[in-house]
């Protein structure tokens, strides 16, 4: 007997059909996962039947006997408060900021009836989802908890009223890589223990393949493939599914053949970055402590670590776009001064690409102006036709045609925007790129294509690359060497193959485990 059954569902927003022909069955104690790129309609599919999106759903949507497509207010109230629990993507914002954890748990418990739990019972609920110091947490406000802790609270609240169906919309996407496995394992355990029917939504096929019984692949509002997860992963039928599986970097895939490296280009020694503590407190925060690394010509070096490990700060200090408290940075044995004192020729050498492509492009500028900006500043001697030649060349290098020159940056997709950001970075002819989580915010298919593009550019221009990421599997597709950072200190460094094969530091082991998912 299935708990939740969707037959021939379609979803409309403002008269536009965004989702069509969706069939989903979820059984008690089983997990059905919906996979798709952003915009594929997967979140709409799981939230619209409960009236949590602006859309309206038609077709047949049966939740334990209630027909949600034609439910009245009382039935909808019942469906939300009794039968279903929700876990959302953003644990940072999904909890009410001015209510304590205890109050929100109490509310979640009483949604199915006017029962009140004692403090001990509430604390026990938090312990069951793996939160330490549970009693103390009850009086805390959500912002005092970390992202992972908040997601545990969300899960505790979602199952507090003993629902039959749990809907988890990208429950781990916003979390640190090393936490994702733990949260998925928690969901697995609760599902089995309580016999919960689980509907899981994710853009990342690798994150659900070991945690779901059935898989539904969506693309552009339609289900293009569905069936048992094992069958789809081992034997995908549709081309889109095959590409989706291939695009996700895995540590089990054969190591790529990387270009030959030359002499040492850049050497950073004893890099230290201190930040003042916020507020009135005295002292400094040591974001990066005595980190040393070198990069050769044509070599890609990965800087990996969890969030807050100092990997971005180190990358920015090296690239000359962030603060540097002490230490030396040499370029071909010549000392590079502090960022503001670098000459135009020095600034040209290293160019950055950031994580959020849309946020890192000026929304009011056209693509042509965005890409040309470094050239205008760094090579003012060029004539206008020379500049336009370089613009066309740079766009061509990143796989964009000349028709993009007049596009406004807000009209671009995430992948297109990241290509524009890369074109902007390479147009002035740099020797080295610093890529800060350049593929992390992108869908796997798009991110995979960007990794491919970077590998091509690396070969064609003999570019050196510093690749900052939390995902070792992505880094392995591009990088010769790896530097692992933890709490600002370099804890491990070596050839990529060796470190992946035989990790020494516990952080490295954790990150490798997270990359296996």
């Amino acid at each position, binding site marked *: 007997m299935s708990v939740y059954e969707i037959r021939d569902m379609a979803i409309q927003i403002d008269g536009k059909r965004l989702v069509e022909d969706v069939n989903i069955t979820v059984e008690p104690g089983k997990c059905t996962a919906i996979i798709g790129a952003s915009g594929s309609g997967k979140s709409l599919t799981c939230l619209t039947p409960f009236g949590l999106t602006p859309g309206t759903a038609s077709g047949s949507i049966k939740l334990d006997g209630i027909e949600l497509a034609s439910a009245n207010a009382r039935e*909808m*109230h019942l469906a*939300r408060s009794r039968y279903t629990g929700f876990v959302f993507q953003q644990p940072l914002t*999904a909890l009410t900021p*001015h209510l304590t954890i205890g109050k929100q748990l109490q509310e*979640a418990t009483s949604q199915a009836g006017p029962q009140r739990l004692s403090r001990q019972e509430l604390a026990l609920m938090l312990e069951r989802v793996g939160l330490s110091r549970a009693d103390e947490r009850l009086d805390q406000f959500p*912002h005092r908890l970390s992202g992972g802790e908040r997601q545990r609270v969300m899960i505790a609240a979602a199952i507090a009223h003993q629902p039959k169906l749990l809907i988890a919309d990208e429950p781990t996407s916003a979390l640190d890589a090393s936490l994702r496995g733990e949260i998925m394992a928690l969901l697995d355990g609760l599902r089995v223990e309580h016999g919960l029917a689980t509907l899981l939504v994710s853009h990342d096929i690798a994150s659900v393949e070991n945690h779901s019984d059935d898989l539904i692949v969506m693309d552009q509002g339609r289900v293009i493939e569905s069936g048992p997860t094992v069958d789809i992963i081992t034997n995908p039928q549709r081309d889109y599914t095959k590409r989706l599986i291939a695009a996700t970097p895995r540590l089990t895939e054969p190591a790529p053949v990387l270009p030959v490296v030359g002499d040492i280009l850049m050497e950073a020694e004893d890099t230290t970055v201190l930040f003042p503590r916020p507020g009135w407190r005295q002292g400094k925060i040591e974001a990066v402590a005595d980190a040393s690394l070198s990069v050769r010509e044509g070599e890609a070096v990965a800087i990996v670590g969890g969030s807050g490990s100092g990997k971005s700060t180190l990358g920015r200090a090296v690239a000359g776009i962030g603060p540097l408290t002490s230490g030396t940075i040499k370029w071909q044995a010549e000392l590079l001064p502090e960022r503001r004192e670098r000459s135009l020729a020095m600034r040209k050498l290293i160019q950055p690409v950031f994580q959020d492509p849309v946020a890192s492009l000026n929304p009011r500028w056209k693509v042509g102006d965005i890409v040309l900006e470094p050239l205008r500043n760094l090579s003012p001697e060029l004539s206008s036709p020379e500049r336009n030649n370089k613009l066309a060349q740079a766009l061509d290098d990143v796989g964009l045609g000349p028709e993009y020159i007049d596009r406004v940056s807000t009209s671009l997709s995430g992948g297109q925007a990241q290509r524009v950001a890369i074109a902007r970075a390479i147009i002035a002819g740099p020797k080295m790129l610093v890529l800060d989580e350049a593929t992390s915010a992108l869908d796997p298919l798009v991110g995979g294509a960007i990794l491919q593009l970077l590998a091509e550019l690396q070969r064609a221009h003999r570019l050196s690359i510093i690749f900052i990421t939390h995902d070792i599997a992505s880094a392995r597709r591009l990088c010769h060497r790896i530097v692992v950072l933890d709490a600002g200190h370099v804890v491990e460094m070596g050839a990529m193959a060796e470190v992946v094969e035989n990790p020494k530091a516990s952080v490295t082991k954790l990150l490798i485990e997270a990359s296996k998912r």
Partner: protein
Amino acid sequence: MTAIPTLLVIILASFFLMRLAPGGPFDGERPLPPETQAALQAAYGLDKPLWEQAWLYVSRLVQGDFGPSLVYRDFTVSELVAQGLPISLTLGGLAILLALLMGISGGLYAAARAGKTADKTIMTLATIATALPTFVTGPALALCFGLWWGLLPVSGTGEGWSWLIMPVVALALPVSGAVAKLTRAGLATVLKQDHIRTARARGLSETTIMFKHGLRPALVPVASYLGPAAAGLLTGAVVVETVFGLPGLGRYFVQGALNRDYPLVLGVVTLYAALIILFNLFADLIYGWLDPRMRDE
């Protein structure tokens, strides 16, 4: 932490600005003989260098001595303030309460019916209320309720509390309009946020969602408006007290300024400034209650 220096700067600035204005406290229609003038000046220390006078004033103020009034010769400034302050505080306090009550409930109702007629009507009324100055609404109220319909006393403090109604309403109207707009805008932002979706997913009613999960964070802009609004209510009270003939602080403030009664004006300014600073501190405390995240910033 910055309250004391701020207060000191305000006092000194007012002290010197007032002395820049021509005339003095003893310039009557009939000029006094020069000897009398000089004697009076000496008696009140006005013949000393300006810096010394400022220093003397501040050092007395620290001991709680606001000095004598130069025009109401038999009274000290403290005595005059003690007469006017209770009336002004009652007026201002009630006006703030009324403004918050009308503004927040209006904003809530409008947000609950966003885009509908009720919403548009309330927002239009709020704009009008904000735009109308008290010297227009005050006399208009007095004309309607006092003179034509004879429901409420037009002037003075009279018996009971009915004399408070019109001044309080006149004072509260502009503030309530602004509060309604801020509440409505705050709710529009907050009701789109993720935690509201979480609350909705729990099957809570829209009313519960609005009051329990939405209202408090939505009132943050109202709290930041409260400090300056308190200032507006206190200084705005000058007009209202004049219109309704109430013996509040405002009257002494205006007359003191016209008569060049230096200690009286300085005393009232000090009091106003202290109250405004106090209100701003209070608003900061309210922030922390409305959104606990701000306590850690």
